[in-house]
């Protein structure tokens, strides 16, 4: 799955920066389960095809519906330049079925160090 382009954006009241992304394929049910490896996922399965919300504190949140070709992402503005690439990787790395996440996890750790340093100072 791939992000094609950003179709809308706005600055939110909570200080975050929202971007709506168009995807090259509808979001499959397994995608949010996969995201659970990198943060917290909440869902309301009985609304539409299923509403999902992924939260990666200090990085970004993603929400959307299964079967939809757009998702809404809210970035923590202060570190958006550090985390936006990882968002693209999260989408492009997704495959149906079992997969090795170690490369993505390593990247997450590296970005995470820089995010913490930016937000909270050197460890």
């Amino acid at each position, binding site marked *: 799955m791939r992000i094609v382009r950003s179709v809308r954006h706005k600055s*939110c*009241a909570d200080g975050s920066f929202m971007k709506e992304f168009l995807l090259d394929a509808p979001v499959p049910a397994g995608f949010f*389960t996969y995201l*659970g490896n990198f*943060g*917290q*996922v*909440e*869902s*309301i*399965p*009985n*609304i*539409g*095809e299923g*509403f999902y*919300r992924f939260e990666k504190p200090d990085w970004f949140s993603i*929400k*959307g*519906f299964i*079967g*939809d070709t757009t998702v*809404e992402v809210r970035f923590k503005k202060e570190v958006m330049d550090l985390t936006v690439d990882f968002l693209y990787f999260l989408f492009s790395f997704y495959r149906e079925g079992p997969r090795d996440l170690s490369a993505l996890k390593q990247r997450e750790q590296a970005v995470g160090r820089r995010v913490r340093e930016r937000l909270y100072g050197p460890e």
Partner: protein
Amino acid sequence: MARSPPIYLNNAATTWPKPPEVLDAVRQSLALPVFGSGRTTGSQGEDYATLAREALAALLNADPPEHVAFTQNATDSLNILIQGFLAANGDGCHVITTALDHNSVLRPLHELERQGRIQLTVLPFENGFVGPDTLESAITPDTRLMVTAHGSNVLGSVQDIARIGESLHDHGIFFIVDGGQTAGHIPVDLRALPVDAYAFTGHKGLFGIPGTGGFYLRDPESVAPVCYGGTGTDSFSLYQPREMPERFESGTHNYPGLAALAAGVNYIASVGVKTIAEKAERQTAFLIRELKSEPNITVYNESPSLPIVSFNIRGMENDDVGFILARAYGIVARTGLHCAPLIHRAIDGGRGSVRLSLSWFTTDEECRIAARAVKEIAQNADSSVGSS
């Protein structure tokens, strides 16, 4: 998943759809060369500024029509009136506003306070209203100006501006009313109301298009112009004309916008504001009754005077509710702070709310679908599944 056309319940932001007459007026206004008084030898087009001015003066019972000046929107009007009042009367006075107000009032006033040009008091509210005692106790010998919203864009409450205006005038205080949410929605009689200036926007209840607004000013000398330029009149003079409306209307008008505004106001007049208000009241009461029947839903004003319903669903972010309404049900609402941060600080701890707002074109069936959708989301909020 989204419905096309959507069920549009964001009319307190901008009304949609517009009456067909409005769309026709915009097209017609561009089909011939525009007629700008004093700016052309042609006589093919209509004088849209005069048409809109006379239509508005009749709707708001404001006379003479020339005391209606056009601007870009209500925010523009309020800035002109506030800055112009200080330009005419000098800095250093005490100004009153309320926590019910929109940023179109709060930001200009707070900026003036930050610059040390005014002292500012923001009155609290209770149950959607500012009490008479609260107002009286805030008035000081230095108070010269009060600026406040007629109708709240979050709570739908309408202030008793007759009573407020009488109190203010007893103390010689100038009264600017933000009519952004009331013009076109409820009857407004500016001949009877003790209001010195009334600001409106074209694209909400008046059914115009974005980019038009204006204000009525009873005594033009009380507010100085803050923008100067060509008016197509008295051009030998190097100073701004003192007369209305040229005093406040520099530069070429937004003719398509004014054509739309005139058509919108004439449409409202043909239906009748009272008829519009009665339908809105019935539909709003239905929505509130339905939402209140769901224990998970908090409605912030159960008896609004405007077709505005603000609510939250327990355990859900208002933004998520708006997202679900739009994507799963094709219902357009608005979420967040609605540019009125002080109201939200008071009613929901600053979290913001979901707002449904109706117009004359909202159908009963749309209200039923919206109520069902919100209740369905609220019923499923408890079934939220978390994992990490």
